[in-house]
């Protein structure tokens, strides 16, 4: 930037700059943004490394559509829940779309999170120093599955109800702690009004809070440690080729030193390459 500053500044610009400086002086927001946005990442970063961001965006979309649904949804087992779902689907402007996006978003989020995990696993990206990033990520996967489970009950139709009864029974069948977990999930020994409001609160307060917290930790680790480089990036492959060449050259030297070994011509291509460097 070589713009020359001539004359008095535009007062709007001056005011804006003063405000930014004021905030930055107290919060470090400028430094923070620069640290976050303009940090270098390895050049070979691939399209496969967009899945984590995509999962986060889908989570954001689920949050927005979920908030809209919560404006109309009533967690009432005496017909209120079912009627509010009917109302959202049939009466509310764009309600069917918001509900459709929320339901499809859940499926897509699970697919994206799984693909993201597969990418990290196949690339060995969980290895040093990113072990804790993986652990926060594995909790995010479990929370996402739990989100699917608790959300399924809220529509309060026959299919959802009985599937959730069976799922909660499975939790409750675990040894020792199972019965307690079952009672906590059901809010008592039986499925009833308290169960629905409990699932509602878990689905829209407890798990989203936990997911947001873990996303924060996950992101902090990613920015602090840097995104992993593909194990087969151009740079890595070049280094591996060079290492291989060096290894071969060393083996030849060793072979030369041995009596009765073959004498390689001086114009051996690898050595020529080594010499050129």
């Amino acid at each position, binding site marked *: 930037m070589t713009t020359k500053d001539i004359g008095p500044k535009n007062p709007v610009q001056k005011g804006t700059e003063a405000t930014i400086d004021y905030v930055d002086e107290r919060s470090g927001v400028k430094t923070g943004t620069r640290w976050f*946005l303009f*940090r*270098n990442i*390895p*050049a070979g*970063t691939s399209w496969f490394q*967009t899945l984590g*961001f*995509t999962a986060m965006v*889908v989570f954001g*979309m689920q949050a927005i559509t979920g908030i809209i649904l919560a404006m109309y949804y009533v967690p009432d087992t005496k017909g209120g829940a*079912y009627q509010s779902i*009917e109302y959202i*689907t*049939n009466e509310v402007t764009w309600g*069917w*779309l918001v509900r*459709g*996006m929320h339901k*499809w978003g*859940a*499926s*897509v989020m699970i697919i994206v999170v799984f693909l993201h995990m*597969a990418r990290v*696993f*196949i690339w*060995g*990206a*969980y*290895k*040093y*120093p*990113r072990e804790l990033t*993986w*652990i926060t990520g*594995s909790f995010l996967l479990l929370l996402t599955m739990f989100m*699917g*489970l608790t959300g*399924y009950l809220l529509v309060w*139709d*026959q*299919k*959802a*109800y*009985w*599937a959730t*009864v*069976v*799922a909660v*029974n499975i939790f409750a*069948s*675990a*040894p020792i702690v199972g019965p307690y977990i079952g009672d906590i999930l059901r809010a008592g020994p039986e*499925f009833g009004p308290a169960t629905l409001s409990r699932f509602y609160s878990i689905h829209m307060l407890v798990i989203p809070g936990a997911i947001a917290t873990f996303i924060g930790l996950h992101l902090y680790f990613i920015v602090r440690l*840097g995104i992993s480089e593909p*194990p*087969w*990036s151009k*740079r890595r492959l070049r*280094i591996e080729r060079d290492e291989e060449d060096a290894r071969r050259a060393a083996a030849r030297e060793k072979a030369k030193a041995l009596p009765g070994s073959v004498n390689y011509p001086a114009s051996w291509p690898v050595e020529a390459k080594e010499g050129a460097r």
Partner: protein
Amino acid sequence: MKPADKKAYDKDYAQAKKTGKPFFPYAIYKDTVIAGLTVIAIIVLAITIRVEVGEPVNPATTDFIPRPEWYFYFAFELLKIFANQNVLTPVIMATFMVPNILIILLVVWPFIDRGPERRIWKRPFALGLTVIVTGMLCYLTWLGANSPAGVAKGALPVSGLDEQATKGMAVYMANGCGSCHMVAGVGAPGPGPDLTNEGAKGWDNAKMIAWLKAPKAPMPSYASLPPQELEDLSTFLNGLGTKYK
């Protein structure tokens, strides 16, 4: 990873970063493209395949098909595999052991695989695990999607029913028992065990009614059925394979 390997990695990564590109705009551009396409895909799905409103909940009628969302099909199919409840395939394997082993493996995996190698073709164990786990998940999900959802309608191929057992069979059909159990080849092959020879256990009606009211998970309780229906159903079940074949 050994300290020398860690040091080598740190050095190599620092080099990669030094010769790298800034996060903004290079990575954020790719991120935005894929995330944008995904959101568009969700909207298109929401418009083309509309969500429906199902039947309202009625805890009194247990005429249901306990099918979870597709992303839990694998767990549901696992229940069917371990439905026989014998020593070799106890149901606790599907409800507790297998899921928890998988969860623990998932969380602690970075501490199991600590070698410095990152290229998948040089990590045969990790590659094998990827193929097997992904294959199993896909296969079980596919099985779940294609499992017969129907509750057996009409009559079961069982003969020799007396009056009470006929009533019991009607209760069995009306409450969707066939969506989890099989009798003489009719009904779903799981998650519940095959009931064709249920009578061979030699239970009396009191024991069967107690079981129906408080069964072992994942079977739901049938305590909401009227006492007479429970009596009829128990008579029917306790005679299966012995009196009624």
